[in-house]
């Protein structure tokens, strides 16, 4: 699979602050590429440099081997993290406005079908719900039928149902062989959508790979949780188990052995919860911060 984008030695400085610190990675064509990290990690700055919106202090971004030029806006689609739209225009008028900017826009019918806009096509922008608004912003990002799509925290602030709907839209778009670059706070989102991820912290890439590769690299165990009131203190101390919010966390490489041990100690298993490590645990492991905690 060929490279869609190659980022080489990218650095961005704002006076005394280094927002992005000499990072390099490649995005494969047709892949969904995730940039993960907490607020201020440098994700948005990185993709805005890739989009040609802001300039890098150092380094370069190559699209299929060529540097970014003025025509890049014809080839990429962007959904920004914070974007207001002209309040008094309807969804249909907004689509028409943005269509006029491009040489070969998708037809409105196609966009409406792709992003499921039919139900609110004649509604004013300022009357849209969070999910409807994100779908419109996605349609605007797709209006020029781009090969590469940038989505900057597209589901932040949406309810779980709207998030799931949005994920399905992204999967449909990905199935059309589009390359997607996604930043997110939500690890379940990254696990669900991304083929490759990089984890950023303080402007640097601290890990990269596929979600599966990274989880198996750092975690060969599962987490078992029990209410603390059911586990005697001397057993917690003896096994050096962690006490997290009224629950005992047991890291286990073999669930069967651990359960046998608990039963041998006559510890009741009511309220037992078993969880595999996820990207949130990975981030906690790599940086010492929980993503949700800092969010």
């Amino acid at each position, binding site marked *: 699979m060929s490279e869609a984008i190659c980022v080489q030695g990218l650095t961005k400085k704002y006076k005394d602050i280094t927002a992005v610190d000499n990072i390099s990675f490649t995005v494969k064509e047709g892949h969904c590429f995730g940039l993960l990290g907490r607020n201020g990690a440098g994700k948005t700055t990185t993709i805005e440099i890739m989009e040609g919106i802001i300039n890098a202090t150092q380094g370069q971004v190559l699209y299929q081997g060529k540097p970014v030029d003025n025509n890049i*806006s014809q080839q990429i689609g962007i959904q*920004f993290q914070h974007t207001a739209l002209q309040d*008094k225009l309807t969804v249909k008028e907004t689509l028409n406005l943005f269509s*006029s*900017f*491009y040489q070969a826009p998708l037809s409105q019918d196609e966009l409406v079908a792709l992003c499921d806009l039919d139900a609110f096509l004649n509604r004013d922008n300022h009357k849209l719900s969070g999910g409807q608004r994100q779908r419109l912003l996605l349609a605007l990002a797709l209006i020029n039928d781009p090969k590469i799509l940038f989505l900057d925290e597209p589901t932040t602030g949406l309810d779980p149902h709207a998030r799931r709907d949005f994920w399905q839209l992204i999967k449909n778009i990905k199935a059309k062989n589009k390359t997607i670059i996604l930043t997110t706070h939500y690890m379940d989102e990254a696990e669900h959508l991304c083929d490759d991820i990089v984890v950023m912290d303080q402007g640097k890439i601290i890990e990269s790979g596929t979600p599966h590769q990274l989880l198996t690299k750092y975690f060969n165990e599962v987490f078992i949780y029990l209410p603390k009131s059911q586990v005697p203190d001397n057993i917690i101390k003896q096994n050096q188990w962690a006490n997290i919010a009224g629950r005992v966390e047991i890291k286990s490489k073999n669930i069967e052995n651990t359960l046998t041990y608990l039963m041998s100690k006559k510890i009741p298993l009511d309220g037992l919860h078993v969880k595999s490590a996820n990207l949130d645990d990975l981030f906690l492991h790599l940086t010492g911060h929980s993503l949700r905690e800092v969010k």
Partner: protein
Amino acid sequence: MNFFRFFAVFKARNIEFLRDKSSLTWSLLFPILLLFGFSFVFSGDGRPAYKVGIITGVSADSNTQKQFMETQFIEFINYKTLNTATDKLSHHTIDLVIDSQNKQYWINTESSKSYLVEKIFSEQFSNYTRFKSNGTKIRYLDWVLPGVLGMNMMFSCLFGVGYAIVRYRKNSVLKRLKATPLSAFEFVLAQLFSRLFIVIFISSFIYLGCNFIFDFYMIGSYLDLFIVSVLGAFCLISLSLLVASRSKSEELTSGLLNLTSWPMMMLSGVWFSLEGAPQALKTFADFLPLTHVVAGARAIMIEGASLGDISYHINILLVMSIVFMSISAYLFSWNTER
């Protein structure tokens, strides 16, 4: 420059304005209410004192003249040419014209004020030849109309363009547009022409609508008036673009726009003539675009001036427009850096 992109933004901005009912209503109602208010409050000529025009360059009769010029409640205004002064007299803008070099004075036989000022004047100057003038009285409403429309135009141009651009910049509408092939030039030009269209449409609507009720005094060319209005609006929009060229703060821009608009509202001859004002104030007012818009429009409407007659105001508006536009184009920023 892509015309389709320009026209799409132009059209979108017009739709936005026309659907913003509170702004639209205010733009229409504010000047109409002012005009109605003035028509009731100043049903007379609206001037508190007598005004006497003096033809400049005269030195004769200095002692007696000095004594006369110290008369209370009479304002003395210098005129370079006799024609200008007698025109003002015939429009009831002033009450008497004195040319002491040739020992002549003019009164308006249809003005009660002129009659009274003549009584005071002729007590002291018995050797002057009397000339008569007459003409339709210019109501304060007719006089103030170009000022009210000009002021409305000024607020619409300054706040409608400058404030909107800063709001667009602050809430990232500009950033979203920058990510498209739309150029800054196309965007700015569309904002400019959209507002130009809106202010000319609204001003024409108010003028024509109110003309049915008030029958405004207009002896000049409507085409000339249109040209001055377009040029004035263009200049004010350019000034607004300059103020809004970089800022991301609505508060700062609001302050700057107020700082720009208030001196114009007070000193550009919207409400009262600056003819008798100190020279320093008149010089300052000359740097304000609205001064030239109002003076030009007023000269066309009341004096029947042609574009050639008001070329001074036209040239200044052109120069100001070029300067404001060039600097704002140079400074304009989408401001996408956080």
